[in-house]
Structures are given as C-alpha cells and as structure tokens.
C-alpha cells in the first residue's frame, strides 16, 4: 500500500477499522478530538457504529456493554477524561473483556492544559481504577506505530481477554508522518462464544458477564486467576522481547538513555549527537509499558555504567527503571512538564553533567 501523510490520531482510527473494530464510543476532548471526528466519518461507511456519549463515564460503559456482546470496540480520550473512565476500566478488567482505550495524554493535574505530557504513566501502568488488576499498556513513538500498535492491541486484547491501553501524547496525536496502512484483519464476533447474545447451536448455557464475586473464596479465586493471566502476559513479552522493547546502540553503551513515546525519538537524536562527541550512549525504548521490560534493564545494569531516564513528567517511569536496575548502577532523571517537550540540547546537557561531573 502507498504511503499516506496522516495525523497520528487519524492513523490510529483508520488502523482500528482495519483491525475489524466497528464500534466507537467517546466524548470530545483536546488533543484527541481528531480521532472521534475521523471515526464519526469512517465508521458509517463500513456499517460501523459511532456514538458520541454524554460523558467519558458513559462512553467506557458503552464499551463495556459492546465488549461483553463480542464487539471489537474502542474508546479514546485525554488525561482528565481517562480519569473519568477508570471506573469502567476496572469493571472491564474484572469481567475480563477485550477492548482498546486510547489516552492521548495532556498536562495535569486537574484541568492542567492541552499540551503534550507523559504524566499519566502511573495511572496507566498501576491500574488506574480500583482493585487488583492490570491493563496492557502500549507506547507508540511514530504515526506508523500509532497504526501498527492499534492492530496489535486488538489482537492482544482478544488473546488475553484484557483491556489494552494505548498511551500516546499530544505530539503523536497531532503529528503527521507518512504511514503505510497495515493489511486488514478479518474479525467475526461470533468467534467469542462467551459473548452475550451469542446464539450459536453449540451454546449450552446462558452467558454471563460480571465482575461481582461476593464470597471471599470466590473473589480470591478470581483475583488469583487474573494474577495468573498477568503472569502469562508478562511471560509472553519476555519471550517476545522485540515486541516489548527497542534497544539502540546499547551493546557498548556506557550511558543508557531511557524514554518512551515521543521522548524516545528525541533521545535517538541525542544518542547520535553523543556518539559524534565520543560519548558511548545508547537508548532503551519500552514499547510496552506494562508489563515493563525489567529484564532488559537488569541485563544492561551489568554492562552500562549509568542510566538517564527522560520523561515529560517529574519522574514516573523512572521508578520502574530503578526497580529493574536494583541499585546496581545510578539512575538519573530529567523531566519537563506543562507541555514543554525537552529539546535534544537540554538532554545533551544532562548527559554531559552525568558523564563529566565537575
């Protein structure tokens, strides 16, 4: 297929359609509004359903309903709206339903502003809502990946019967880059024999979708089975490292730069500039934020001498890096917030500080 110049938000929307997603429920919020606008136009053309809900709370509950009925379904929002969706995400995780939730992050807390940010890392990777659960979290860093990861996200969601969160930001959502749309996938919702409304001849008992388990033993058993599933997901990405993480010039790196999303693109430039200046820098870029690729860092901690984590927050993912490095090597941090995207010059300056401390 030919290259098309597209915004990240729109590329994600088109990719969702190619993934077989025919249901979108959402509520407008900047900087993700191109995505619902795109799908409002496209979904009716493919006999899909677009509903502008009365709130993010309602939207995620419509997703919950549609997912329980077997749909490939998604919603999207930006940070404050994602906070509102947490109730529904918790129910979806509890009832083990597949769906895609997109967060085009903006600055917070509170109303914050509409500028790009990465300050929802904790919310995304720690569950966000109440209860003992996990969402699979993916972090694209280009418009091409906004598309590619969307197809993968729907596959993971169905495979693990778990919500998948796409953690994007204002830059990735608004940016245009050439993108080659991935090949479409066939999807048949009646492949989900557990779904409500499934009426196949092989149905022997009614189907039920719930997240309530009143007895202590009952709930503990459910939590245990969720935990085991999360182990399966973790093992899957350990075994398929390339899906979870990108390493760039790490083999001989003394300083390992760490960042995800748009930051990882800037870090790549920084690594190249470092190398030109004789600093052996490398880059680790998690593509999947939960499960976090801890083993990659554990291994690098034996080789590299320093880590520098860069985020558009005052330090969230850095905690996971520290946990993974286990104190073997110093882990430094540099962050900007409020919509400031740290420049390669600023970061280079930070690298200088830690490489050549005065």
């Amino acid at each position, binding site marked *: 297929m030919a290259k098309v110049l597209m915004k990240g938000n729109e590329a994600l929307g088109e990719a969702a359609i190619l993934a077989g997603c025919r249901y979108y*429920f959402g509520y407008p919020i900047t900087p993700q509004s191109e995505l619902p606008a795109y799908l409002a136009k496209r979904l009716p053309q493919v006999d899909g359903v677009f509903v502008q*809900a*009365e709130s993010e709370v309602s939207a995620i*509950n419509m997703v919950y309903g549609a997912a329980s009925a077997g*749909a490939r*379904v998604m919603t999207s929002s930006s940070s404050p709206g994602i906070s509102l969706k947490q109730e529904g995400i918790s129910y979806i995780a509890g009832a083990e339903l597949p769906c895609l939730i997109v967060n085009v992050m903006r600055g917070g807390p509170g109303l914050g502003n509409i500028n790009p940010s990465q300050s929802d890392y904790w919310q995304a990777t720690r569950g966000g809502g109440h209860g003992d659960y996990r969402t699979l979290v993916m972090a694209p860093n280009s418009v091409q990946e906004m598309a590619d990861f969307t197809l993968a996200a729907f596959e993971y969601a169905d495979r693990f019967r778990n919500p998948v969160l796409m953690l994007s930001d204002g830059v990735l959502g608004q940016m245009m880059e050439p993108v080659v749309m991935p090949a479409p996938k066939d999807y048949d919702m009646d492949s989900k024999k557990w779904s*409500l*409304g499934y009426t196949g001849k092989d149905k022997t008992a009614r189907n039920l979708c*719930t997240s309530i388990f009143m007895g202590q033993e009952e709930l503990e058993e459910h939590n245990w089975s969720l935990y085991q599933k999360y182990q399966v997901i973790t093992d899957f990405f350990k075994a398929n490292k390339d899906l979870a993480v990108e390493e760039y010039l790490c083999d001989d790196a003394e300083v390992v730069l760490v960042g995800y999303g748009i930051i990882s693109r800037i870090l790549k430039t920084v690594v190249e500039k470092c190398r030109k200046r004789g600093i052996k820098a490398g880059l680790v870029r998690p593509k999947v934020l939960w499960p976090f690729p801890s083993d990659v860092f554990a291994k690098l901690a034996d080789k590299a001498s320093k880590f520098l984590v860069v985020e558009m927050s005052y330090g969230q993912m850095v905690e996971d890096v520290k946990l993974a490095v286990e104190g073997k090597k110093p882990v430094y941090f540099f962050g900007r917030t409020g919509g400031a995207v740290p420049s390669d010059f600023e970061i280079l300056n930070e690298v200088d500080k830690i490489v050549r401390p005065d």
Partner: protein
Amino acid sequence: MKQVFGKTNVLSANPTHYCPGCDHGVVHRLIAESLEELEVADRSIGVAPVGCSVFAYDYFNIDFNQAAHGRAPAVATGIKRTRPDSIVFTYQGDGDLAAIGTAEIIHAANRGENITVVFINNGIYGMTGGQMAPTTLVGMKTQTSPYGRDAATMGSPIRVSEIIATLESPAYVTRVTVNNIANQIKTKKAIKNAFTLQKEKKGFSFVEIVCICPTNWGKKPTDAHKWLTENMLPVFPLGTFKDIHGIEKA
C-alpha cells in the same frame, strides 16, 4: 389434574435473596413471563444494576451483564448497538437510575436507544441499608434523613417518568405499580408492551414500577402496600405519559 399455573422457564430455580414481601420477585416474574410469551427469551440480554437487584442475573435463564452503579443504560446501549436483534433491558432501582445514573438514563432515552428500562421506584436505597433516594418522599425518615426529608435542603422527590416523557425520542413511558393483583396484571401488560415495541424496533421504552421496601420502610408487606397506595401514589401518579405508537390501544 389440569395445570392452571406454572413457573416460566425463563426464571431460574434459584431461590431469591430478596427480603420477605419484596416486590422484586413479582416484577422478575412479570418480565420473565413477558419474554417467554413474546418468544424472545433465547435472544434476550438483561443488564443488572447495583442495588438490591445486583444479582438479578441469578434469577433469569438468559444472558446477563452486571453493570456499574447507574451505568446500565450505557452498558445496554453498547450491547444493543452490537447485537441489534437482541432484546435488551435494564433493571434499575431509584438510587441507581435517578441519582448516580441520571445522565445515562436521560441520554439513552434521548438517543431513542431501542432498549427497555424497568425502573423500580421504592423511594429508598435498599442494599446499603435504607438511605435517602432522589424519590424519597418529603418528611420521610431514612438513615441519611433521620429528621425526615427536608425539601428546603434535600429537594423533593424526582418524577423520572414525567422527565423522560418531555423528551422527543422515547416511544413509551408509563408508571405502574404492583400493590394488588389488578395492578400486577396492568404492570405485566406494560412490560409486554415495552418489549413488543422493542421487538418491532420502535424505540426506547420505560416502565416505572412503584414498589415497596418493607424492610427499610420498617413495615409489614401488607402495611407497606397500603402505605404505598396512600403516600407514594399521590406523589407518583400512575398512568402512561407517552405512547407514540399507540401500543396500549393496539
């Protein structure tokens, strides 16, 4: 001997957890019978609320979803849009529907979602132990209005059917009660009308049922029904507020 009455197969054999005298059991049966008579049970999907009827799914032999507090109309929207040939209904109490779920019910109604909502209005929160509901009568004492509901600071009972009926989209909005046999028969008719409209893809139907809560009202079931008749019905008058397809006359 000729059998003149039997339990519908749409109800499960599970004994309910409801308090003695509670109206939920009656309404469950009326819903189940209606689905059976309309021959749609095998493609029906219920959405249970949060409240006393959170386990409603245990008592029906049909597909069920258990929704978050107040969100049942949104969940039902998602289900119905995905499976448009299913018969989808929510079963919600007054706290669920008229307080925390106000936005969801108003907008599902306004979109004209082709679903049926069964609204149990007994003027009190049952499961959490008898707190004030949006439909609690003025002066009524509850756990959270121990001196009686004061209209000046706590507002007056919300009449949801009347509000829903002001919207353009809903096809059928009616208020019934199950305080005696005659009214139970009328309620059954209303529920069946609602499902019939849905089956014919004629839009949103809303059946409010004024019910008792003997436990939290602190009354015997028979006294509670008498109290309902004397106190609830003047505030929540029975009647059909909207019937754009004339189903009641058909």
